[in-house]
């Protein structure tokens, strides 16, 4: 099973629609780039941290959101410190921390399925220029087959391990890709057989 990064909860944050959350993230993100004052950005940081508590996300999980970016942020801090000032270095690193935490909060409080539903709803008005049904099918197919392909990858890895090739990306990727492409052809045939996107046939009306 593929599990998202969602954290169960019923707070105010969990109940806002994904569209509103994304829109507010865009506004906050843009706004943050105009702030040049260290105290204001520190205030924003404090507000975003307190939002985590409101949303009932444990502090440990909050810190985990910053970890992947940590090394890069340290490097940026050092470069800024030596080429500009301590103040600017702090401002920029805090700004990134605000952005990452705000963005992650949305991820943590919104189910992946709700997000995908939100995308599909958002695309509906575009049905004239975009085959919306097909986009939905493609998204669902991908989510459905990620665990399958991960299992195939593990299987191939084991098989190549027996040949002493377990760390050889080439020896693993080629069988995985070819098996997947073959599987894709079979899936397409199965979809054809179920008449996806063909005009419905009405024997009574077509007479």
């Amino acid at each position, binding site marked *: 099973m593929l599990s998202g990064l969602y954290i169960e909860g019923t707070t105010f944050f969990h109940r806002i629609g994904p569209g509103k959350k994304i829109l507010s993230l865009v506004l906050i993100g843009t706004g943050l780039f105009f702030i040049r004052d260290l105290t204001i950005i520190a205030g924003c940081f404090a507000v975003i941290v307190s939002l985590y508590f409101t949303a009932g996300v444990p502090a440990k999980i909050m810190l985990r959101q910053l970890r992947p970016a940590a090394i890069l942020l340290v490097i940026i801090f050092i470069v800024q410190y030596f080429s500009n000032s301590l103040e600017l270095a702090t401002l920029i690193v805090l700004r990134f921390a605000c952005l990452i935490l705000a963005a992650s909060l949305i991820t943590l409080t919104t189910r992946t399925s709700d*997000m995908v539903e939100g995308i599909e709803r958002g695309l509906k008005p575009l049905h004239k220029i975009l*085959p919306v049904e097909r986009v939905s099918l493609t998204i669902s197919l991908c989510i459905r087959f990620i665990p399958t392909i991960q299992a195939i990858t593990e299987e191939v890895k084991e098989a190549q391990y027996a040949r002493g090739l377990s760390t050889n990306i080439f020896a693993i990727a*080629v069988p995985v890709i070819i098996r997947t492409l073959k*599987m894709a052809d079979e899936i397409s045939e199965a979809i054809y057989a179920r008449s996806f996107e063909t005009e419905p046939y009405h024997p009574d009306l077509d007479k």
Partner: protein
Amino acid sequence: MDIKHSVYIALFAAITAALGIFPPINIAAIGVPITAQSLAVMLAGGILGAKRGALSVVLFLVLVAVGLPLLSGGRGGFGVFVGASGGFLISWIVGAYVTGHIVEKAWNKLNVVYAFASAAIGGIVIVYAIGIPWVAVAAEISFNKAFVGSMAYVPGDLIKAVIATAIILVVKKSYPIISKSED
């Protein structure tokens, strides 16, 4: 448009996700971990062609954005896009397109040179051309400093381009997808 295209796009995005479970390979001489995922970006274009390759990367990134931990190291969500290195992720879309475009153009005479050029131009030149200015603007550092800092990843990416070349050529021989779409 054929439903087959959608299925290829979906399953290649799933391959990109599956390659994220490979632990990053640490090469002592370089000192920077290399992940198999940006390899998948070169492969998406090189195997599916420009349009489908780019769309499969778009799909992969959409799934990352909506909260699936599919990036190597189990990362995902909106946070990865707003960080300093977000530009590199966005650049994958254009990178896959360019790789695919070169492979399509050279399809009938595709050899090691063309395949390597496609992987290197799409997967390295384009990716850095978008990723580096992004870092420079977002972190307010000079372009030169961002450029020098990113160079640490180039040796790893060159290795990936070599691996991508071999895979693109083998898949072309045994299960070609690009020529199929032309009939």
